[in-house]
């Protein structure tokens, strides 16, 4: 009885697998970790982009955001002989060996959102230029406090490559004479954990009584900071800005703890990643500067030089979410 059930299940599964593998080309996206709504949206956008072109999409993400787990997944994808792998890296360098293995097996590799180093990718699909994101956030803080006062940064983990790149830009930017009256007190790390981010935000407020702005380039951090400021009744005295999901931040944008913040559309980003990848696999582009391709409904894109020495394609400037538009977006992503 049980045996026949197992058999039946196996036959069924084999049939579906066989059916799907008939579709010659499958494209895989490997996100950072599972259960992350930002990632789910990005993967959904990727899937939409791939399926629009009548191809198969494979969506993968490990249960914890580690490079080790992504390496194992990429090895499995190599064994499946997928056409292309779109990687949202948990580590800038650590995926290089396995991604080069993939390339050796004639699999095209490109990174999305959180990049891997140029040696392990054809190009990077960037949400926005790293410089622009860093600059925009510092400018936002400047505007919120009239160009004068103390600020602090509350990031994800100290190992997060995207966040670290943005923070680096912010620090460079703050050296400009324009920002001479703005003092960066501290870069704190909340490790993208709710409890730790809250403790760190509270610590910033307690350690630096003159703190005016917390910049948090990560959803968990910005929401935690918004929550702390709201609970402490500091709305209007201390501001939060940075990057965050509109859904998570709706409350704090509406109540004024965060006058405005930025993000891009993760669905569009995934969609762009899909089109860019298919163009790469089909040989329309190779990833060198000046390559052009059309990304479905998003229109035409050109590959440009990126800050890390490789090439990239940029989705567009970050989108500004404020009290006026947040209601439209909070239920979208």
């Amino acid at each position, binding site marked *: 009885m049980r045996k026949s059930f197992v058999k039946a299940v*196996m036959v069924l599964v084999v049939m579906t697998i066989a059916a799907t593998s008939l579709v010659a080309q499958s494209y895989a996206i490997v996100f950072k970790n599972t259960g992350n709504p930002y990632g789910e949206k990005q993967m959904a956008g990727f899937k939409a982009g791939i399926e629009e072109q009548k191809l198969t999409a494979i969506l993968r993400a490990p249960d914890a955001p580690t490079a080790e787990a992504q390496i194992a997944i990429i090895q499995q994808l190599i064994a499946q002989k997928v056409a292309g792998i779109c990687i949202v890296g948990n580590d800038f360098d650590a*995926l290089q060996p396995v991604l080069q*293995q993939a390339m050796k097996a004639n699999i095209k590799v490109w990174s999305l959102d959180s990049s891997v180093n140029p040696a392990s990718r054809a190009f990077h699909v960037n949400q926005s230029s790293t410089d622009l994101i860093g600059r925009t956030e510092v400018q936002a803080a400047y505007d919120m406090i009239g160009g004068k006062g103390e600020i602090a940064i509350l990031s994800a983990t100290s190992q997060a490559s995207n966040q670290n790149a943005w923070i680096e830009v912010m620090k460079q930017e703050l050296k400009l004479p324009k920002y001479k009256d703005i003092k960066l007190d501290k870069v704190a790390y909340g490790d993208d954990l709710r409890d730790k981010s809250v403790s760190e935000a509270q610590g910033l407020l307690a350690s630096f009584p003159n703190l005016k702005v917390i910049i948090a380039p990560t959803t968990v951090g910005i929401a935690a900071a918004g929550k702390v400021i709201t609970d402490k009744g500091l709305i209007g005295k201390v501001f939060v800005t940075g990057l965050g999901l509109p859904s998570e931040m709706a409350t704090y944008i509406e109540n004024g703890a965060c006058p405005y913040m930025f993000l891009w559309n993760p669905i569009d980003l995934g969609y762009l990643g899909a089109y860019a990848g298919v163009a790469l696999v089909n040989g329309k582009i190779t990833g060198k500067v000046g390559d052009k391709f059309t990304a479905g409904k998003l229109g035409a894109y050109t590959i440009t030089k990126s800050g890390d020495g490789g090439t990239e394609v940029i989705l567009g400037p970050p989108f500004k979410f404020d009290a006026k538009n947040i209601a439209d977006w909070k239920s979208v992503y």
Partner: protein
Amino acid sequence: MSEREISIDRPRSLKRFFFQWEWLLVLIFVAVNIINSGLSPYYLNFGSLIGSTNSFLDMAFLVLPMTFVIILGNIDISVASTVALSAVIMAVGFNAGLPMPLAMLLCLVVSTLCGLFNGFLMVKFKELSAVIVTLSTMIIYRGIAYVILEDQAAGHFPPWFSFLAWGSIGPVPFILIVFAVCALAFGLLLHKTSFGRKVFAMGNNLTAARYSGIKTDSVIIAVSALTGLMAGFTALFLTSRMGSTRPNVALGYELSVIAMVVLGGVSTAGGAGRIGGPILAIFIIGYLNYGLGLVNIKANVLLIIIGSLLILSVLVLNLRFGGHRRPAPPIARMIAAGKAPDEKA
């Protein structure tokens, strides 16, 4: 009283032979493989089957000494942090100009020192359980790694270094060969030498072992150092696999490693177990991950499957093999606060 003949024949019976936990593991292993090859056309391919071992074997080096640790009735949750610290120091050493072979040696030395420090604490402070000692050093070792590398990654190793994790001799991955050698060595050490005998004796009855003149402190330190050394091996292969390293590598390895050892039939009460079980468990979990990964099963479903496998196999173990296994005491009847069995008032 008449002189009585005492035989020296070893007891042998078919029932005894087949009524072993390892057979169940073999069955599970075969089942996993059958299911996997049914699921994915890419699975049953000698090249990828043997080649895929490099995706899970780096952690396996920790399973070998952890088997010793758990047979001793202890537990070590600092292994993953030891991996991170030794990998970081190796990378920093190399980037500071040390030749790569020396940097690799440094990695093993550092990891062994970490193990020795654990052993030292356990021996000098017998009132403390191994959980407490290694919980503290777990935080400290990774803490040092963060202090050293901060938010940086370190790498740029010479190209040949990647051979460790990615290279193969013929169709057989280099890491599999090294692991086989290590597994053989640990198996012989545990089952064929006086050292292994001492480990079992201490796990069964630490006090009696001490009264029998076994240098229990030395054995604990030796096992801790071995654990450290193998953490260094994991660090080498993991770093080679990733081409660079960071303070947050190998996060959470300790629980996976402990799960494999226990799935392998080693009693967490100490004193019982064989090396074959944990080795089979490595391949069961490794191939299960790999095979289900080939059909792109979601990570959360995989979590449920592995969790269920763990519980089901132990359930079977208890219901079917319940008779001759010792009852389940706490995480380990180890040298716990105030109750050191080895300590006279």
